[in-house]
């Protein structure tokens, strides 16, 4: 046993030395994690605030100016231009300079004073459907707020006059509804909170699958696999020696990204570190198994890189990292149950943002466990057969 461990340790040492010496490996270890962290931590922003807006006032009354003030005061919009030219509006929307145009039609002020319905038009750039629907919501709320405060007054007084004239009892209380919303887990609705924890999952998947596959195929390609085979090392020991270094590298990545998330990006960490650590190990079993499997079906490092990439890309796209799984068509949703990244993303987000524990996350953990054991087990058997 000690002998076996000694042999495994030798392979691990050799593997570390080789991977860290190779500039390709070093690039792979550093560039993707760093770029993803910076982009998702700093640059990516799905939050919609201060959207550029054009104001088109065809009425020019105190009422229309009050509405403009309501838009200005909301902090949701920045008025980029005021214009009355139809062509200019077209042009600005075409160029993407403004995302929404508020057009106050003639007669707006008059109709409000009379207590009739006053017309306002909103033109929204729908290219990005999500921001368009959020923006229309904001604009509709501002208008409704203004309507409630200012414009309902004449209506109400006219109602009172009418009812008094009819000799009926005056009923002053009009029903009004208010929504008080509380957002949990991410009260400021920052997209950074959503993305940065997920980077852990991407990095482990990208780095460990590719590195494991490449390191084994390299031995095959340059013929050193035969040399290893004539040493007393057994296939299982060789395999352990090959995957343990990358498991360590993967865990190191988890540690680094988590530290950066907490210290640099100030993402809350509400759950248990041990749970995250344990789930990472389970997930590593899967990715290492995938890497091992790819190594058995590839003859050259090139094929290994390509296969890893085409394993990673769909797994990444269908993991729920960017595109919520709930939005996918139903058949695809079922397919995602076969995607280990999906479970790990749910665990990571749960642990970071919600502070959920094993009680809630056990199905995901169980799935990862089953996945990891089968993937690694099958690949190990396959790997042994290939070597024999």
């Amino acid at each position, binding site marked *: 046993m000690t002998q076996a461990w000694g042999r495994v340790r030798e392979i691990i040492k050799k593997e570390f030395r080789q991977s860290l010496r190779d500039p390709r490996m070093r690039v792979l270890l550093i560039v993707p994690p760093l770029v993803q962290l910076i982009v998702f931590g*700093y640059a990516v922003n799905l939050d919609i605030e201060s959207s550029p807006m054009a104001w088109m006032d065809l009425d020019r009354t105190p009422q229309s100016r009050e509405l403009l003030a309501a838009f200005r005061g909301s902090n949701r919009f920045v008025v980029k231009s005021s214009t009355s030219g139809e062509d200019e509006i077209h042009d600005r929307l075409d160029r993407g300079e403004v995302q929404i145009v508020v057009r106050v039609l003639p007669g707006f002020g008059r109709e409000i004073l009379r207590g009739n319905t006053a*017309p306002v038009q909103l033109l929204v750039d729908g290219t990005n459907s999500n921001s368009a629907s959020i923006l229309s919501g904001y604009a509709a709320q501002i208008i409704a707020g203004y309507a409630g405060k200012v414009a309902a007054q004449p209506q109400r007084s006219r109602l009172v006059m009418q009812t008094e004239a009819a000799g*009926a009892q005056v009923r002053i209380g009009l029903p*009004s509804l208010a929504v008080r919303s509380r957002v949990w887990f991410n009260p400021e609705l920052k997209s950074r909170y959503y993305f940065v924890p997920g980077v852990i999952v991407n990095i482990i998947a990208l780095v460990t699958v590719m590195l494991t596959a490449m390191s084994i195929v390299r031995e095959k390609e340059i013929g050193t696999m035969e040399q290893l085979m004539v040493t007393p090392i057994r296939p299982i020991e060789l395999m352990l020696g090959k995957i343990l270094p990358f498991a360590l590298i993967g865990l190191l990545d988890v540690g680094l990204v988590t530290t950066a998330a907490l210290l640099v990006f100030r993402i809350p960490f509400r759950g248990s570190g041990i749970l995250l650590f344990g789930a990472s190990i389970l997930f590593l079993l899967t990715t290492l198994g995938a890497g091992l499997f790819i190594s058995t079906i590839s003859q050259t490092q*090139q094929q290994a890189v390509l296969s890893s990439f085409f394993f990673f890309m769909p797994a990444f796209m269908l993991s729920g990292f960017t595109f919520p799984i709930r939005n996918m068509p139903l058949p695809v949703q079922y397919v995602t149950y076969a995607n280990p990244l999906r479970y790990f993303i749910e665990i990571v987000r749960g642990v970071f943002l919600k502070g959920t524990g094993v009680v809630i996350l056990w199905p995901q953990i169980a799935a990862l466990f089953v996945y990891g054991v089968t993937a690694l087990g099958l690949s190990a058997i396959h790997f042994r057969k290939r070597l024999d």
Partner: protein
Amino acid sequence: MNMRRTWAVTRKELLHIVRDPRSLSIALAIPLFMIILFGYALSLDVDRIPAMIYDADGSPQSRDLVSQFQGSRYFQIIGFARDYRAIERKLDSGECLMGVIIPNDYARDLLSGREAGIQLILDGSDSNTASIALGYADALVSLYGARLRAEILNQGRGGQASAPIDGRIRVWYNSELKSRNYIVPGLIAVVLMIISALLTSLTIAREWESGTMEQLLSTPVRAQELVLGKMTAFFFLGIVDTVLALVAGVFVFEVPLRGGLLLLGATSGVFLMGALCWGILLSAVARSQLLAYQMGMISSFLPAFLLSGFIYAIENMPAVILIIYLLTPSRYFVTVLKGVFLKGVGVQILWVEIVFLAAYASIVFLTATRVLKRKIA
């Protein structure tokens, strides 16, 4: 530069491509597969948000409000809670994203004219979905409130509903607000970028590794002819890919194509040249197929996916990223694709992007030629 020699290189390269089923399948099948799969699977349309309701009031008025939520296609009521804790648990487990709580004095406040409050709890971990859900819920409640008010007002005037302000929303360019309409054009750019860089990243490194570079050098072919010849060969493939991608976009996913086909074709051509030359440049720099491959993947996939504006809006970038961002060709291509597809705008608006793409292609071409010359010498 000699056209005959360039063409000879192109022919040689085309033969290589046709004879190697693996690169041919990478070149043709994978892009189409990715566009179809992702175009079908990926969506940012938020509807049927799983919600849970806790109606503490249980009055006819509160039940009417509940039925508003039930009737909305944006919400799917997954159940009714009997207390606050039940909603908390479902939010924790992620089974529901929103809780609606109607307090027990709702009907009393509503009837007496006081402000009746409704409480919403949202799972904010997916900030995008949460803000859209919040918007829908707010809109639903305020519309409902306005209708209640109008009903009361109308009692005194015998019908004729009227809201104080009629805010009519018209959505341009993507009037049904389908996320697919803006995901698919971006996807086309991302996929074309990855495939072009991958395809060409091997081409020169392979010549070095298999030793045929020496043979090529003994012929009178010059560096720029080699680069141009190789690029032309892959350009044919790239054009086939582009046509497949555009056909899939228009006919499979029914993305409206409002602008000029000629503009779209020309810009795609310019973009392809730049992306292909990028691969050739990497291949000339790396000299090893593997390194070229990896560099091709990382340098095409990460920027094209993250920085092109395909999905993520980019703001407040640190300087390093800003430079990469400004130099990402797919970013300009995505703008052109979305502009031509959805907005139907023409050269007078998109010329900046097109000029950049052309400049990018020429600079990368010249650099690749120079690097290759230096390596040969």
